[in-house]
């Protein structure tokens, strides 16, 4: 281990990296979707069409930043900020490489869960403050979806916590040196991924937006950079869930020595970002009640069973069963 890096460099690096990656992902997604749909996608501006991101950003900045006269102004302005802030705060606990972590909290995962539950407010408040029936419908769907899937998200992580004996992501990554947790916790991985897609309200779970029925749902009244913040928040959310999946189930920065740890981490993260985009390209959107039933009737029992079975196996392995007196 080398001497610790100045935390301000880490904070600056993480912020700069994320805020470049999030708009870059928009281009990445459009190109990948185009590839899977057998067309070109944006390929005119700059090499491979990368500069289309710049054009999009400039367009967003110069659009009229309109607040509807019937909206609740203060809440309307706060809502898009909440999503960006909470997602960026969650990155505080993600270890990008050994020692490259903003702060190694001993409640790591819980902090992420807390921040993701605060992120639900941006949808609810944005939809409510817009004072528009479509936005309100989107917000209500979003609130119900986020609240339910938060439950499974927390439960699906507990198997990993049990195996590693710590909430801190750095400890979790370090304890995966022998075997990645995706093998013993495969069910946990699948349920966490599903809950993560629902938390970032990406397709196929983008029911709060559902542009074909709710004309973009909770953010239909937003324009300019306020909409841009929702947009960037969504892509930051994808990056966050991918990074967490990598840390929790795929060994984080661990990998063969020919590449530095940070590169391994970024490579693995981009694999999962690609998976998110592939899901968008291939899955139909479920109906709203199907989504809720799927959550409460299938995922909840599976995660609970996974947790109990993991706990029992650990108990048997530790030999504590022999000592129980009835």
């Amino acid at each position, binding site marked *: 281990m080398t001497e610790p890096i100045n935390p301000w460099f880490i904070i600056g690096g993480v912020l700069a990296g994320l805020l470049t990656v999030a708009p870059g992902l928009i281009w990445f997604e459009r190109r990948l979707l185009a590839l899977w749909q057998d067309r070109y996608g944006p390929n005119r501006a700059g090499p491979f069409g990368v500069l289309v991101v710049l054009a999009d950003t400039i367009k967003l900045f110069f659009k009229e930043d309109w607040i509807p006269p019937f909206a609740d102004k203060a*809440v309307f302005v706060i809502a898009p900020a909440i999503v960006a802030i909470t997602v960026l705060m969650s990155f505080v606990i993600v270890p990008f490489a050994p020692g490259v972590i903003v702060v190694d909290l*001993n409640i790591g995962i819980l*902090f992420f869960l807390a921040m993701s*539950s605060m992120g639900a407010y941006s949808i*609810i408040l944005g939809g409510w403050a817009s004072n528009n029936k479509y936005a309100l419908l989107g917000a209500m769907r979003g*609130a119900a979806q986020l609240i339910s899937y938060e439950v499974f998200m927390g439960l699906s992580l507990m198997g990993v916590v049990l195996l590693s004996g710590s*909430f801190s992501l750095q400890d979790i990554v370090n304890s995966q040196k022998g075997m990645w947790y995706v093998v013993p916790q495969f069910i946990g991985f699948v349920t966490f991924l599903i809950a993560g897609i629902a938390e970032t309200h990406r397709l196929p779970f983008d029911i709060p937006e559902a542009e074909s029925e709710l004309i973009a749902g909770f953010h239909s009244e937003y324009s300019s950079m306020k909409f841009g913040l929702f947009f960037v928040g969504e892509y930051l959310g994808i990056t966050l869930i991918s990074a967490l999946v990598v840390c929790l189930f795929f060994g984080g920065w661990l990998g063969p020595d020919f590449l530095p740890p940070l590169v391994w981490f970024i490579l693995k993260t981009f694999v999962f970002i690609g998976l998110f985009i592939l899901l968008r390209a291939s899955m139909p959107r479920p109906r709203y009640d199907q989504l809720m039933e799927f959550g409460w009737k299938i995922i909840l029992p599976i995660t609970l069973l996974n947790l109990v079975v993991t706990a029992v196996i650990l108990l048997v392995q530790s030999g504590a069963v022999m000592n129980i007196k009835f």
Partner: protein
Amino acid sequence: MEITFYISAAVAILSTMMVITRFNIIHALLYLVVSFLSLATVFFIIGAPFAAALEIIIYAGAIVVLIIFVIMMLNLKGDAIDQEREWLTPQVWVGPAILSFILFAELVYVLGSGNAGASGLPNQLVDSRAVGKSLYGPYILGVELSGMLLMAGIVGAYHLGRQKKKVIHRFLEQKQE
């Protein structure tokens, strides 16, 4: 670190006062969230990060979201704000103010007379392992009782929300009549 404690405590008191005095109920709930967040910060500072995280996840993240969810469905706009304004008259303040003043006087007396609060912030950290051990050790009865209470709540909610099985298709519905 003591200054951070006083700042977050002041924010907690201020935001709680705003909760009471706002006429718009969603604004009041937003201040309630701020109040929970500052309480969580206080927990964090006095060395209970686990309690802080749970405070945010459960209270700020789940319970208030559910309350807002219900209020969004009720669609309380202008009329409700006027009604709140009528309800929050100076007379309403008298009773609670007297009672709180008694409590406040008692608190000042306790703080001034004894050793309570003399040592400043504690240094020991209560981590999640310690919380789990005490929950499933000396407090196991409380955990089981609250589990039974929650189970009763779930069963009750299921009973209230249960619907008779309906024939979904409209043609079949007409035939049955």
